[in-house]
């Protein structure tokens, strides 16, 4: 057993290389005890030619194999017979052509096997055949043509599956008498397996068994349904001009060797554009059947590619299947633009609001400085003063910081630097005038009321001069709606002792706290404090001195006034 197998391993590559040109060596397989007839393939005459133009030798022997037909090994017609074969017959044989101008030689290797244990065959001797479900099939008991009996009638064949008899009791299996075929109806996957056919060959009165074993593979049979398109599916795809597209027609088919192809505008794609090189492919698919396809590359999409449908056709035995795909220009990404636009708008708004919050005062002041005089020809509101300054009067001889602030710093910045016109009681009133009358008149002629606050101390009451204060607040809050600017000269922690009206204004408009010193050095109008004050002050509206003089002391009707820079 070992030696023939070893030999086989060595001989197979040998056989293959020889086969490519001409079969000069072939292998034959037989079970021990069974007859075999071997044909020499170089024989030009038919196998049963009566001329003995061939001579058979066992390798290494110069003595031709006998033509004595009663010998176990003999040459009959041009065939080499072993009736029956024994294990010792394994080996090389050689046939030579006689009576030929160019003598030719062929080597034959005979392999004699015993059955595998507990089996009626040897796995090395199996023939592979294939049947399909749904279309039925037949398997064939092969290589019996030399074993017709003496009356030259085909031998009767017994069939076994996995070495078990009684196969034909299942009426799906059919084998007509004298027929080498086993027909299987309604093939199922369970019909896969090893089928052994057995017949007898009677020679010289002795009956010999002849058996063949076939492994029948069962595959899902082709269906009578048309192939199905996986791609395309009569749809469109968005591609950019100049982009690369792989056009891949992909079809699921139960029938092999169909040939899909692309067409456009009624012609093959390679005629539509000779750069479109179509390639056909086929591969087995997972659930049985095949994936067939045709594909080509559009390396650069051109304008003409947008104007036609690309059809993939596949002809099949039951007709034709067609599907198409259309190339489309990509739609502009409106959503993207919208989102981008909105996001940037929101961003710009947030930044603008932030900047405005941060620089509101600077912007307003800058606007008043640079644009206001050009843009507005304002109607006079009939007021003379930009602000009426209300401040606590020094009660005893204390440090006179409010006085310095009000009488020195405030005029220095607001009047001299910024050009405002202030009314400060104690500076601008004429001696002998009644305070209440002056206050009432001057507050009415003022656009703002500046109330200077100091923390309550022994030196100052919050606002001592109640009549003046009440008037101012009354005017500010009720009669004329004059805006009040609170200036704290120091941090005032406690407003509880303040009058209700001051509390109200503080709560509503807040207060500006002076953090500077009270020296009389020059103060800049562009510090944060002064900017805040200027912001709350009205836009400068100073009349020219000449106009001022022309005005009546008290005017109620509005006049058009010329602005002065």
């Amino acid at each position, binding site marked *: 057993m070992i030696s023939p197998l070893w030999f086989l391993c060595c001989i197979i590559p040998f056989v293959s290389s020889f*086969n490519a040109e001409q079969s000069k060596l072939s292998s034959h397989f037989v079970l021990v005890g069974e007859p075999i007839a071997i044909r020499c393939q170089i024989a030009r005459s038919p196998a049963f030619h009566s001329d003995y133009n061939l001579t058979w030798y066992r390798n290494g022997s110069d003595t031709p194999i006998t033509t004595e037909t009663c010998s176990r090994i003999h040459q009959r017609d041009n065939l080499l017979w072993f009736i029956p074969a024994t294990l010792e017959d394994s080996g090389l044989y050689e046939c030579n052509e006689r009576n030929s101008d160019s003598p030719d030689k062929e080597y034959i290797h005979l392999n004699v096997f015993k059955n595998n244990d507990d089996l009626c065959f040897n796995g090395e001797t199996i023939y592979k055949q294939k049947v*399909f479900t749904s279309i039925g099939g037949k398997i*064939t008991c092969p290589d019996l043509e030399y074993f017709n009996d003496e009356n030259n009638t085909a031998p009767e064949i017994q069939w076994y599956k996995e070495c078990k008899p009684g196969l034909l009791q299942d009426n799906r299996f059919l084998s007509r008498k004298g027929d080498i*075929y086993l027909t299987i109806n309604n093939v199922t996957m369970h019909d896969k397996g090893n089928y052994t056919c057995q017949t007898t060959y009677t020679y010289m009165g002795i009956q010999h068994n002849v058996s063949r074993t076939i492994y029948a593979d069962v595959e899902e049979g082709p269906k009578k349904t048309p192939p199905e398109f996986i791609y395309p599916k009569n749809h469109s795809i968005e591609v950019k001009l100049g982009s690369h597209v792989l056009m891949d027609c992909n079809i699921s088919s139960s029938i092999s060797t169909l040939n899909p192809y692309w067409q456009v505008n009624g012609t093959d794609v390679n005629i539509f554009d000779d750069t479109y090189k179509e390639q*056909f492919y086929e591969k087995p698919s997972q659930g049985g059947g095949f994936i067939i396809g045709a594909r080509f590359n559009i390396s650069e999409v051109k304008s003409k590619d947008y104007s036609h449908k690309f059809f993939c056709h596949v002809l099949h035995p039951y007709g034709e299947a067609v599907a198409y795909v259309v190339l489309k220009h990509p739609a502009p990404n409106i959503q993207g633009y919208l989102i981008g636009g909105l996001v940037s708008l929101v961003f710009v708004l947030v930044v603008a609001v932030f900047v405005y919050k941060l620089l509101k005062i600077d912007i307003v002041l800058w606007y008043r400085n640079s644009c206001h005089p050009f843009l507005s020809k304002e109607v006079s509101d009939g007021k003379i003063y930009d602000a009426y300054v209300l401040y606590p009067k020094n009660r005893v001889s204390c440090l006179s910081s409010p006085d310095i602030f009000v009488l020195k710093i405030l005029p220095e910045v607001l009047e001299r630097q910024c050009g405002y016109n202030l009314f400060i009681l104690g500076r601008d009133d004429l001696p002998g005038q009644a305070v209440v009358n002056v206050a009432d008149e001057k507050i009415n002629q003022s656009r703002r009321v500046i109330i200077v606050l100091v923390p309550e101390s022994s030196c100052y009451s919050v606002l001592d001069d109640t009549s003046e204060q009440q008037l101012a607040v009354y005017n500010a809050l009720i009669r004329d709606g004059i805006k009040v600017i609170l200036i704290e000269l120091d941090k005032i922690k406690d407003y509880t002792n303040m009058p209700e009206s001051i509390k109200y204004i503080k709560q509503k408009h807040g207060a500006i706290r002076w953090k500077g010193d009270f020296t009389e050095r020059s103060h800049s109008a562009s510090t944060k404090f002064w900017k805040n004050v200027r912001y709350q002050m009205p836009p400068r509206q100073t009349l020219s001195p000449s106009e001022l003089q022309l005005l009546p002391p008290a005017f109620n009707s509005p006049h058009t006034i010329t602005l002065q820079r």
Partner: protein
Amino acid sequence: MGDSEPRAGLEAHPSEIHEKPAAQMKVFKYRLWDVAQKSLYLRNNQLVAGYLQGPNSALEEKICWVPNRSFEREKFPIILGVQDGRRSLACGTGALPALQLEDVNITELSRGGEETTRFTFFRSYKDGMWRFESAANPGWLLCTSAQSNEPLGLTTSPDAAHIVDFYFQLC
């Protein structure tokens, strides 16, 4: 298309064939075996149909094919080749047409043209099997003998001795 297409005739310049844009065919290997389960193998430069036992099944000759687009697609026209498509199966056009293998690559023949007619077979399909009719010899079908180890041939009369139904499938 092909048959009805006006052509310069058989003496068309070879360069004309090359100028015609050819469909590029990747060559796949297929099994072709007859309804009696005989496989094909090569012997003495001929395709022979027989039963390959045991390790001999490795000797089965795989078939390559390309469609021939010069002919009506409805006839499933193809060109058959062996040895990775390097040799093509051709039909003689004598009184009794014979088959032979010629050293022409099937991909060259896939360009089509009158010259490829004798390499072309029209196919018809029934019950999972194909028949191959020689384009050059109408009515002549590819056949195997009921006897094993006989060369592939052509016949006009399919019968028990001349088998014309083949399974044809991707390996």
